[in-house]
């Protein structure tokens, strides 16, 4: 069987909706693109813990302090699961972590921004987790089977997080003037990064991830799904969206966003987001200082073997 034959057979399997397991034959571009995609997802989970965790020490009640710790713990746990899936595609977790902290690989744009107050916790828990869930649900049907299996577990936990975020949002929405201000202020700062969340419009014909059905929806489709679900809910709570061009199109029944400025997005992609360097350099410091911890762990693993 020539390489071309194998490739054709692989594409036929993909098109027929079949799943690929770790030990199945796969073309190099499939392996590399899938690894890169999952690695970025894993990176985003562990980096995504950081903006939120800043509010664990400052949570306004004991109950919120515990639930926010539990929630961030889940996100780190998702990172752990995803790194394991990525490792099976041929890159060690150590190498992935080294690449992350030295800025050689990416993590999601929203995790490059600062947080200012408890309102940000509501925005992250409700809208950013909500945005992520739209993407993650679309991945349940991913052609790479181990990833799809992990996504199933992640989606069910994310569903709980969404309720946690919604709950915090409702407390603020029904609260004092200051509490309502917190949510509105958070919305004003986060709306643009949220619009950037799914990435710029892309050409589906050139997207290898779509061709191989690692992803099944384009960036624009996902963004539209998010808008149609969340815009009416946010407006219902009496908050304002910082987008003058936003309107409801009665013909399609869709919410249409105004013009998006992509410059801040590209800055983030280049690793120049407002908190990119601060967060990565602290990770590097913890990583470098604790080399002895990793050595002690690998030593005992070696002894046990």
């Amino acid at each position, binding site marked *: 069987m020539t390489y071309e034959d194998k490739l054709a057979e692989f594409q036929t399997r993909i098109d027929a909706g079949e799943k690929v397991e770790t030990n199945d034959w796969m073309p190099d571009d499939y392996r590399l693109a899938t690894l890169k995609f999952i690695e970025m997802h894993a990176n985003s989970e562990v980096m995504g813990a950081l903006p939120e965790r800043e509010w664990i020490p400052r949570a306004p009640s004991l109950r919120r302090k515990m639930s926010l710790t539990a929630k961030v713990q889940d996100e780190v746990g998702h990172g752990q699961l995803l790194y394991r899936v990525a490792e099976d595609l041929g890159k060690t977790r150590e190498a992935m972590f080294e690449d992350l902290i030295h800025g050689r690989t990416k993590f999601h744009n929203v995790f490059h921004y600062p947080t200012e107050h408890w309102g940000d916790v509501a925005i992250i828990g409700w809208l950013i987790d909500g945005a992520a869930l739209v993407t993650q649900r679309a991945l349940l049907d991913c052609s790479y089977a181990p990833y799809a299996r992990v996504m199933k577990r992640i989606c069910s936990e994310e569903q709980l997080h969404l309720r946690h975020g919604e709950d915090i949002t409702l407390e603020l929405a029904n609260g*004092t003037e*200051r*509490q309502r201000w917190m949510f509105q202020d958070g919305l004003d700062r986060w709306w643009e990064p949220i619009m950037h969340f799914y990435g710029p419009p892309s050409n589906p014909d050139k997207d290898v991830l779509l061709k191989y059905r690692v992803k099944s929806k384009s960036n624009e489709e996902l963004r539209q799904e998010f808008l149609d679900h969340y815009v009416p809910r946010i407006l219902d709570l009496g908050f304002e969206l910082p987008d003058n061009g936003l309107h409801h199109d009665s013909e399609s029944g869709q919410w249409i966003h105004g013009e998006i400025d992509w410059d801040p997005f590209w800055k983030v992609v280049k690793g120049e987001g407002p908190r990119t360097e601060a967060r990565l350099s602290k990770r590097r410091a913890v990583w470098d200082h604790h080399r*002895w911890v990793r050595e002690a762990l690998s030593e*005992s693993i070696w002894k046990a073997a």
Partner: protein
Amino acid sequence: MTNLSPAFKESLEPLLLAIADDELIMGHRHSEWTGWAPHIEEDIAFSSIAQDEIGHANLFYTLLSGVIDKSPDEIALARQSSEYRHAIICERPNRDWAYTLARHFLYDTAERIRLESLRASAYKPLADVADKLLREERYHELHAEAWFSRLSSGPMEGRHELTVALSEALSDAIGLFEIIDSEQVALEYSILPESNEDLLQKFLSDASERIESYGLPFQLSPSESEGEFLATSSGEMIEGSDEQAAAPPAIAEAEGKWQVTGEFAGMGGRRGKHSPEFDELWDDLTKTYREEPTATW
């Protein structure tokens, strides 16, 4: 709770506050590792321990809220920093993984000894909580012990880091058994079945035996135990230059009895004396609550 005598209540309050504050502040520091721990599995494990400790604090504050008629959140978050009664060791910054583990081991050992004793408390709600928590705390100690075992038998650097951190944390751990306000009354009522002095004896025996079983030294850091000596112009060595200089702290065992002498930097927490680092912690801890004290969150 209305049928408790005023003297009974008065001795219960400082005791519950000390235990609850220990748990809250320790849980707060532990949770500072969430997202930053040097190892992803440990990030997850430490977040669990942090949640447990904060949950335990909540249980003790709930007991207290029945005595002083304030909500647990109000007790936990609406006080001035000098009104907190935790031991200073709980508020020390996390520094690094070695110090964190050393403190984790000593704190959870002390907590077990305290809870085991409180199971016999004449104040039944407290005895019940102590019994319930002991079961959970066992997992914390197992976690600390697994690390001690791994690091003490692993490469030199890890063993060294732990040894240094342990000697530093040990000095502060004494403060966990500092006398509590109205302790004598609490003893008379058997709310507190054993004095902190007696609990400290148990703690030192228990901790020293277990630490030495890993082949690690049970000692204060040399800079503390030796004190400071200065040379005079005549070449004579005199102790300190300040006449008010504190006596160096020391722990020694003789005929099965532990002697704890000198001034320990980790003392004073039970009287509301804290380190400057606690002001920062307090500022974080109460920040959002203070913004809108009447709000629900």
